[in-house]
């Protein structure tokens, strides 16, 4: 099967924060995804779709509709779990991690799954028909214009994102299955805000703007034209860079297991979270995880203060409380002062 050509990730000009945050989530899916804010035409969707090409292969139970990980007995779906407990070997195959899209118009039944109507009519039996959340298990769930998503769809998304499990109790079916995914959302803030609950689920957030330097703008156009003229040739040109980046990600995944972090750095992050008055504990925990992933991406096994600072830039901005007349922006000088004081 010939795949549709995808613009290479490595060929995207600029937008370093966005690219980095996407890569970090691929290295460490536990970071909690990324929210990309920006106007139209800033390569948001291109970047996410391009990411798919870089994604690593993973082991998956053959024939399982949730592509369970045979090496994670704790996260198996019902049928895999039964097989596992009965002592049968779970046959495994390599599949590529992928980007699953959730369109804004999606209905709740398609998202969480529903009754298999065909099966019901033909056989008079109830059967669960898996939805988008099932596809998204162990993959990237991409929601373009997430701020326009219907409320009740957001509700079920929150539920699943929180626990990594999708519990369905609707239309005659009662079912629950693993739904652990990296949530990637894009939004244009001028089209309406996003619910704070959902905002908080995102590990990282970045703001993308169009390039302002004329040279870079020219480069963006040139590459786009070259790609549209002959996509295969263009992709081939970036093949080496793509492979290198892919390998770097795989290495970082290995290094991540060895990364350690000193207590004084944890204390600095804790002080920061208290000082900034962020809600709950997700902010500090995500800063730490992100810093560890950054260290791994740099090939280091020890987190340094620089990692913490870089992580804070990605993790904190969308967690700052916003009140009327406040821009709700992160006061970076304050953050540095707090961190350096520790």
């Amino acid at each position, binding site marked *: 099967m010939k795949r549709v050509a995808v613009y290479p990730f490595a060929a995207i000009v600029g937008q370093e924060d966005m690219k980095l945050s996407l890569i970090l989530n691929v290295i460490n899916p*536990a970071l909690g995804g990324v929210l990309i804010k920006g106007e139209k035409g800033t390569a948001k969707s291109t970047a996410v779709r391009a990411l798919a090409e870089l994604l690593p292969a993973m082991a998956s139970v053959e024939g399982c509709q949730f592509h369970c990980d045979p090496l994670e*007995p*704790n*996260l*198996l*779906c019902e049928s895999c*779990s039964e097989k596992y407990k009965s002592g049968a070997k779970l046959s495994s195959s390599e599949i590529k991690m992928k980007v699953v899209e959730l369109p804004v118009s999606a209905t*709740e*039944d398609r998202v969480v799954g529903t*009754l298999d*109507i065909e099966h*019901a*009519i*033909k*056989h*008079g*039996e*109830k059967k669960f028909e898996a939805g988008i959340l099932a596809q998204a298990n162990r993959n990237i769930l991409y929601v373009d214009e997430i701020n326009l998503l*219907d*409320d*009740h769809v957001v*509700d*079920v998304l*929150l*539920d699943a994102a*929180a*626990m990594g499990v999708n*519990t369905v*109790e*609707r*239309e*005659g079916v009662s079912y629950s299955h693993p739904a652990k995914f990296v949530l990637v959302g894009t939004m244009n*803030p*001028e*089209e*309406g*805000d*996003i*619910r*704070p*609950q959902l905002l*908080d689920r995102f590990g990282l957030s970045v703001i993308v703007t169009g390039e302002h330097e004329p040279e870079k703008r020219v480069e963006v156009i040139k590459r786009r034209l070259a790609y549209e003229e002959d996509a295969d040739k263009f992709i081939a040109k970036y093949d080496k860079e793509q492979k290198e980046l892919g390998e770097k990600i795989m290495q970082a995944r290995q290094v991540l297991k060895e990364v350690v*972090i000193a*207590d004084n750095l*944890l*204390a600095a992050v*804790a*002080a920061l*979270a*208290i000082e900034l008055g962020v*809600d*709950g*504990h*997700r902010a500090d*925990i995500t800063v*730490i995880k992100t810093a560890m992933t950054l260290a791994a991406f740099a090939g280091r096994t020890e987190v340094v203060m620089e990692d913490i600072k870089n992580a804070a830039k990605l993790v904190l901005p969308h967690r700052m409380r*916003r*009140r*009327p*007349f406040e821009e709700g922006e992160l006061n970076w000088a304050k953050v540095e002062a707090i961190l350096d004081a520790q």
Partner: protein
Amino acid sequence: MLNDALFPFVAIVGQENVKKALLIALVNQKAGGLLIGGKKGTAKSTIVRGVRELCGEQRIVELPLNATEDMLFGSIDVEYAVKHGKRKFASGILARAHENLLYIDEINLLRTELLNAVLDANAAGVNLVERDGISFSHPVHCTVLGTMNPEEGTLSSQTLDRFGMYVEAQPELVTENRVKIMRELLNFAADIEGYRQQNLLATESLAEQIAAARTLVKITEVSEAMIQLAAQMCAQAFCAGHRAEIYLLECAKAIAALEQRNYVLPKDMNEAAQYVLPHRMRRPPEQEQPEEEETEQQNEQENEDNTEDNDETQDENDADDQQQPPPPLPDNVDGENDEEPENDDQSEDDEQNEDKEEPTPNNDAEAQEQVADIDKTFPLPQIKLDLDQDRKLRRGSGKRSTKKTDLKQGRYVRATISSTKVEDLAFDATIRAAAPYQKMRENNGCALNIKSEDMRQKVREKRIGSTFLFLVDASGSMGAKERMKAVKGAIFYMLQEAYQKRDQVGMIAFRRTKAEVLLPITRSIDLAQKCLQELPTGGKTPLADGLATALMTLYMRNKKDAELEPILILVTDGRANFVDASGEDPIKQAIDMAQKIGKLQISSVVIDTETDFIKLGIAKDVAKAMGASYYSLKQLSEEQIIHIVRNIN
């Protein structure tokens, strides 16, 4: 199983009161279940799910937000009906929850009717099912555990009242503890299996402690003195009804049992009060009066020995009170439903709820009842149930309301027999309706032969908000700047909570020769920030053009999204004085335009800011023509606008 990767309860750092309350709920079902509030990321769900390993035989049954009614209450067994042509009951979530724990995450987002039906059935101890041709009943006794983030709206005070206990999860504010939390989580993530092994012993011993306490609580005795104490505590807290006393005593019994005692001590009662009283404490009756009046009275006292300036403000306030039709007080906004303090006899309520045509509006407005300082003879708990931070502003707010929708959008809540053509087929309900007749119908190659009489239509529900369009006089008359500033402030405030109420806001200003849309109707605070940075004022007053522009804007809006109810808020001193090309009297023009708006029955409010010595009262006439509520304010403030807006409906 899926949940084997859960963080162990015993390893959770901090949140001692939440953990203790959960243990009490586990030990004694009669303590009435537990509601946990708290900001996002305070480990609420982690703690609740962690009890899975502690409750022995019991299971945690989850009620997800996507649940439909048939799944919750139970319905016909389709497979059995097809095979045997007979109706049989297939149990739902409530049946599974019997003698178990029923967990509702984000409970404040669950539909009010559904939640009330669950609580009613549990209180009555029985689930009566009358649906899909099935008539069945089964016992329900479960411990309901709920978690919620009050940021997204709270439960009504009646619903709060039905939970035995309430605790709030607070974020940890001590650096060392936060470090500890992070360290534990990192250790857990690094080696889930190993981490759980390390905590296995502690988990087992806690589970044993709970099991022992469960046995003990059955024979734990409550002395007469403790009953007296409970009554006094509840009287002091001004609790409505007598459920509070029972919960207090049952809760105290569990506390005693956890300490291996079979008798209750006063300290158990004090501890129990922390969990049982916060959400049901009421203001003492004699103090129950609108907050503003209180402050005014205080002002009055202060004013006596204060400057004249203050005195004037006071007079204004008084005058306002007389002139305005008082906005409806938030209390008893919708007294007709779920007001049932004692509810042993409402076992049929779930069916009643099902039958209700209109969804009950959320009545969270009353949830903010708070306790005033009480003369303490008992060490009553430090009550800090502050479900709504800025209560004064939000008093009487409507909260997000739900509405039936016929545009195939929204959450599928139940199925119905349609009198017209079925357009949004509810497959599951249709199959349920058809199932019992399959034996009799001829086989068409499929297992199911569906006829048109089986067809069921989906009933969907969607949260909607309102569209508020501010029409503001920016002409050169007195106070234009203040008007604009106050409205801007109000808009920002409303957009801040737009995510909660689903409201949209827009602003039109009129000055010089025409009206101008400053802020198109939006939900975006970013856009508002951009559009409302500068607010030019000055020039003549083209009131008629302002009204015309507003009408046009709302008309276009209605075409785009007919479900949002528009509300027009006109802020002006009414002194229309711009004569346009037609040469007509500007005041007459304005009144004519206002009548057009009135004919379309658009909800509207006029805030009159006329302060001149000689009042022309034009704004009042405009209000009359529009059929608008009318308020006259000398001193316009953001708070007043919000207060008025929130009391429109």
